[in-house]
């Protein structure tokens, strides 16, 4: 069969489509974005009219996907690791409701923080929710897992998590497809109370979730994704989770691997396989990308029994992603490395694009703030976060989606005035609106700059849910229309922008300033340009 050349993300998308999934719900976030984008561009998805439009945030995405699963269809939601924090309430409780149609939650983690503010490991969440987790080793397994995860979900009445990391999400390889399955018909859950998590029903459902444990461990034991490869040298046994298995094998291309290896790609852990390794091996080395989740589990608090090595004892680095080299070092294998990086090579950090509207907005803001001194600008997640870097040095925080407005509020409450929030249009509709309501209700004197570029820029120009009704939303939340100020951020408008910002600093209530200009990266997106024109923006 013809191989498709797919990113790990795309392999998951294709696997879900072929499994008869009826819809994906997601908010863009590196390294997960390409899953949904692939479905948006898929011919089969178009023919079948599968849902693939972007959601406002990960929580609304997770809940919409759960609703589709309630109605009997197979559904999927995708996000980056920190997106799961936003969706956590829905996620944990979806494990208590169980499913009707198969329900798959794909989370792409970002160890080494290539494009993120932390490197949290979603397997902890999966364990917390007590659901099965699939962690693919390569693109083919990513496809296969997405294809079979819906079955697993339906069979055991639980959501299933697929966890991958940046290196697989954004790495391409050949993938062979399986037959395209039909979508499921719409159907109601057999038990009409299943999704009603009143305490009495939730207690019943929770017992049912707990009772799935032995079955899920058995499934893990029989899973083709988990393999116990025996070896003659039992001085060390190796547990290699997901992608880490590749780094292990990379180091044994020309050497014989004599140690027993447990290739681990499906959780909960296959208990019998783990017990065998504990029993037969003198010590165990755990290779896992992300947190030392399995290492801690095997080690236990008392550290009794078979010694376990990994990220906790320094066999591997405690933070950052795994690589062929740090895995080699864990086994004392040495390589001849290339030359050092010459001293003259300078760091080249990412930067806002030449001609970007955010830059003009920051230039005006910096001038307006000169008389007050630094330290009072709370920013958010997006391209404008790069305003933290020289030469702008314009912002003082970047924590989580929406935190700009609420942190500015708290700082204003503490007496730091003026307090300024900088947030993009897409991040505003993701998580900024509720915080704005808090400020409006208390008439907190903050100046919110919604830097509007009609798109979700940092992730590559996806649709912004704010497009066409940003002022209406802000007015609806209760901001006085006189203090909603819109202008086009350009060098020519600098004086006007500075004046407007200063005027709003003087207002003792909530002001929203909207510097508005299309993201230059999206200028070739004809449908967006047309839409902006139609809206008269």
């Amino acid at each position: 069969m013809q191989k498709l050349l797919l990113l790990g993300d795309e392999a998951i998308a294709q696997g879900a489509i072929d499994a008869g999934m009826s819809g994906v719900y997601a908010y863009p976030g590196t390294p997960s974005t390409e899953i949904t984008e692939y479905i948006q561009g898929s011919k089969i998805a178009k023919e079948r009219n599968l849902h693939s439009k972007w959601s406002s945030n990960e929580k609304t995405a997770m809940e919409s996907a759960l609703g589709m699963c309630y109605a009997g269809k197979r559904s999927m939601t995708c996000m980056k690791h920190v997106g799961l924090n936003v969706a956590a309430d829905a996620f944990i409780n979806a494990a208590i409701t169980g499913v009707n149609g198969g329900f798959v939650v794909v989370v792409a983690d970002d160890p080494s923080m290539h494009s993120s503010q932390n490197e949290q490991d979603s397997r902890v969440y999966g364990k917390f929710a007590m659901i099965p987790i699939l962690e693919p080793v390569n693109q083919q397994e990513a496809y296969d897992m997405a294809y079979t995860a819906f079955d697993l979900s339906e069979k055991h009445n639980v959501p299933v998590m697929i966890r991958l990391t940046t290196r697989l999400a954004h790495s391409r390889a050949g993938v062979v497809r399986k037959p395209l399955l039909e979508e499921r018909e719409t159907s109601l859950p057999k038990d009409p109370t299943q999704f009603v998590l009143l305490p009495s029903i939730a207690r019943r459902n929770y017992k049912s979730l707990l009772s799935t444990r032995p079955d899920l461990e058995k499934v893990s034991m029989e899973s083709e994704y988990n393999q116990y490869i025996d070896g003659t040298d039992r001085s060390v046994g190796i547990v290699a989770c997901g992608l880490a298995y590749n780094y292990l094998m990379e180091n044994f291309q020309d050497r014989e691997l004599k140690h027993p290896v447990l290739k681990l790609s499906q959780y909960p852990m296959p208990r019998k396989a783990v017990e065998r390794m504990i029993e037969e091996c003198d010590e165990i080395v755990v290779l896992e990308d992300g947190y030392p989740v399995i290492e801690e589990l095997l080690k236990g608090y008392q550290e009794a029994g078979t010694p376990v090595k990994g990220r906790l004892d320094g066999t591997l680095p405690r933070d950052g992603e795994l690589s062929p080299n740090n895995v080699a070092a864990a086994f004392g294998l040495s390589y001849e490395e290339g030359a050092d990086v010459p001293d003259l090579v300078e760091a080249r950090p990412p930067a806002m694009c030449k001609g970007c509207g955010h830059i003009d907005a920051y230039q005006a803001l910096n001038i307006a703030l000169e008389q007050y001194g630094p330290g009072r600008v709370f920013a958010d997640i997006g391209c404008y976060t790069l305003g933290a870097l020289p030469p702008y040095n314009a912002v003082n925080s970047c924590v989580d989606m929406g935190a700009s407005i609420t942190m500015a509020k708290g700082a204003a409450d503490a007496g730091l005035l003026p307090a300024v929030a900088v947030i993009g249009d897409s991040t505003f509709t993701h998580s900024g609106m509720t915080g704005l309501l808090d400020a409006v209700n208390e008439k907190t004197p903050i100046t919110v700059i919604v830097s509007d570029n009609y798109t979700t820029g940092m992730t590559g120009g996806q649709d912004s849910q704010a497009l066409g009704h940003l002022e209406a939303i802000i007015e609806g939340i209760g901001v006085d229309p006189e203090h909603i100020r819109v202008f086009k951020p350009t060098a020519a408008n600098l004086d006007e922008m500075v004046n407007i910002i200063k005027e709003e600093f003087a207002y003792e209530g909530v002001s929203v300033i909207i510097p508005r200009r299309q993201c230059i990266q999206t200028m070739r997106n004809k449908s967006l340009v047309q839409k902006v024109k139609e809206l008269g923006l």
Partner: protein
Amino acid sequence: MKSDIILAGVGGQGILSIAATIGMAAVDNDLHLKQAEVHGMSQRGGDVQSHLRVSSKTIASDLIPRGKADLILSVEPMESLRYLPYLSSQGWLVTNTTPFVNIDNYPEMDEVLAKIKEQPRHIAIDADKIAAEIGSKRSSNIVMLGAASLFIDIAFEALEKGINTIFERKGQKVVDLNVEALRAGRKAAEAIKAQLN
């Protein structure tokens, strides 16, 4: 065969098009391929790299171990040096000499070029100039692929076919210009290599 290639450049310089072209050619020749890309934040003018591995045997890791790369293919001179720890003692460094200056502290060009010339096996060509000469400034990435093709064990015709597939949807003119860029890059590298021998 086995080719472990580090593609280097700055976000927006088109290294993913190079990767996609080699990828197409590899798949067409029934070779195994793994290609790790960088998406997201760094694409905004930061340094970006792609690990591209092509082999007649199964490939384990998506990342190339340090000291194992057969080739560094860089569309920017300073960026070519950033990945030296990956280059094997027998590997080639093939780089564009036109700098992409978007930082204030970009080093002196003479020093960068001197450092490149210190490398035992290197090809340095002005891909931007060559691309401009054929009337397609945006094809300097493909000029570099042409230059590096000397050191990639895939038939040149397969790369030309890859260009056709990758640029097809942009029209025949774009395809033709990029095929020309590919050939021009190879020719330039051949001339330099002939002098070395």
